[in-house]
């Protein structure tokens, strides 16, 4: 038999605990070691992706990157409503559509959903969630990113506890300083104002959407894995350019292949102001660029011009390039010989 007094005491304790759980504000979760932390971090990042596409907000984002010793910083107004995400008057994302504004109007860069999402980031990274600082006046949870088996922090992502939006993302150098970041300077949720200002998706005047390239023949070379943990999640073709898109779960890496020989005028490669810098990868000289979007490297091999672009650190890009063709460009005599030989090759 149970003593009624003891029973009342137990019920009272349970009620007190329940009341305390409701009344006491939730404390941010401390950094969790092991698989639980990974799971939590992945969920937080998934929610952030969803929030960016569904929530209404307005703000200003600062984009910072380092180009050698020089640091660049630019600000971009951002607003989102009714599923349309606008960056200034230049870039729009709406559902699976991506558009950029050009001199000829709005150019469509992407227009379809993708089936393959890519690998889980936990295969390559160790993720930990801990309380972060305020970003743009919002309390955040910080996702700390390390390579599995490494001690150094490589990246930090700050997620708004209230909205779930990713408010700041920064890549860190060996000293722990950010050398590339995208961060909200200000953000508000004025839904009505934002909705009125955002409008709908712009009318597209030209399309350069790539089509899926399922069967590519030589000289194109499809790789299923390159670099450290990058897996192929899609191959596409547009305007004679083949794009292979790889992902490691957190970052993307594109390899563009074009038939031909690299033009001599390197300043025209960029089409803007940069001349890039020479780098040595696997004993081959290539031209590298540091841009707002990330790192890029251009080279030539066996009658193909390769351009690799990534939002990941430079070391990831260099590692991936090592796994791609990079023969010395053939001389004119060798090209003639190759052409003559190819005439008699019937297979």
């Amino acid at each position: 038999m149970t003593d009624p007094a003891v029973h009342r005491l137990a019920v009272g304790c349970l009620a007190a605990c329940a009341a305390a759980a409701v009344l006491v504000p939730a404390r941010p979760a401390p950094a969790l070691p092991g698989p639980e932390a990974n799971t939590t971090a992945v969920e937080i990042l998934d929610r952030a992706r969803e929030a960016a596409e569904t929530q209404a907000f307005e703000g200003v984002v600062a984009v910072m990157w380092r180009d050698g010793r020089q640091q660049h910083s630019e600000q971009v107004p951002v607003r989102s409503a009714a599923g349309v995400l606008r960056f200034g008057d230049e870039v729009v994302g709406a559902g699976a559509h991506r558009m950029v504004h050009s001199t000829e109007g709005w150019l469509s860069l992407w227009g379809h959903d993708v089936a393959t999402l890519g690998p889980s980031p936990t295969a390559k990274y160790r993720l930990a969630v801990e309380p972060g600082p305020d970003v743009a006046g919002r309390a955040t949870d910080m996702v700390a990113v390390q390579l599995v088996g490494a001690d150094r922090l490589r990246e930090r992502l700050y997620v708004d506890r209230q909205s779930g939006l990713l408010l700041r993302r920064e890549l860190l150098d060996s000293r722990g300083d950010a050398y590339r970041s995208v961060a909200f300077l200000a953000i508000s949720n004025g839904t009505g104002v934002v909705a009125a200002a955002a409008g709908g998706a712009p009318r597209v005047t030209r399309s350069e959407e790539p089509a899926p390239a399922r069967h590519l023949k030589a000289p194109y070379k499809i790789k299923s894995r390159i670099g450290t943990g990058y897996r192929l999640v899609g191959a596409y073709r547009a305007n004679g350019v083949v794009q292979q898109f790889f992902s490691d779960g957190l970052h993307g890496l594109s390899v563009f292949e074009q038939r031909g020989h690299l033009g001599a005028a390197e300043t025209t490669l960029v089409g803007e102001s940069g001349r890039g810098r020479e780098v040595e990868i696997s004993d081959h000289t290539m031209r590298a660029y540091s841009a707002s979007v990330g790192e890029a490297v251009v080279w030539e091999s066996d009658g193909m011009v390769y351009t690799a672009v990534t939002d990941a650190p430079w070391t990831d890009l260099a590692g991936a390039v090592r796994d791609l063709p990079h023969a010395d460009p053939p001389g004119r005599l060798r090209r003639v010989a190759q052409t003559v030989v190819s005439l008699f090759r019937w297979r």
Partner: protein
Amino acid sequence: MIPSGGYPRTPRHTGPGGQHLDDTLSAYLDDELAPAARHEAEAHLAGCVDCRAELDEVAAARRAIRILPVHATARPLVGIGPFVGHPRAPGAVRPATSRRRAVWALAAAVAAAIAVVLPRDPQVAPSLPSLADSHAARASITGDPLTQLAPIAVPVRFGP
């Protein structure tokens, strides 16, 4: 009239001085002799009938060669030629060598023609801004659209 065996010659020694001039005659005619050798040759010619006669002969032959019209060789490059079945003079070019040269010349001509005529691979100057846009567009579909798309909206994309 020149006898069929040519002018009777006395035994000669090459070189300037008191010897007959022989090969020095060509150099003399071409004005290739050094001043001292030239004076020596002229002194010899003044006293040597044979060498003067040979000098006239060589000079006449040169003049004759210069005024000859230029004709294309009728000999076929490959196949039966005038050398076939005939004894070959010492030092004459052997037909096999000639054929090899002709084949190589033909091959070189074909290779040169191919190099000139065949279309060359195009020169490519990748547009990094547009490729970067394409990358960001694709990456924003499966990644975070905010942090992937904001960088391609900044006014300046590539540093100096």
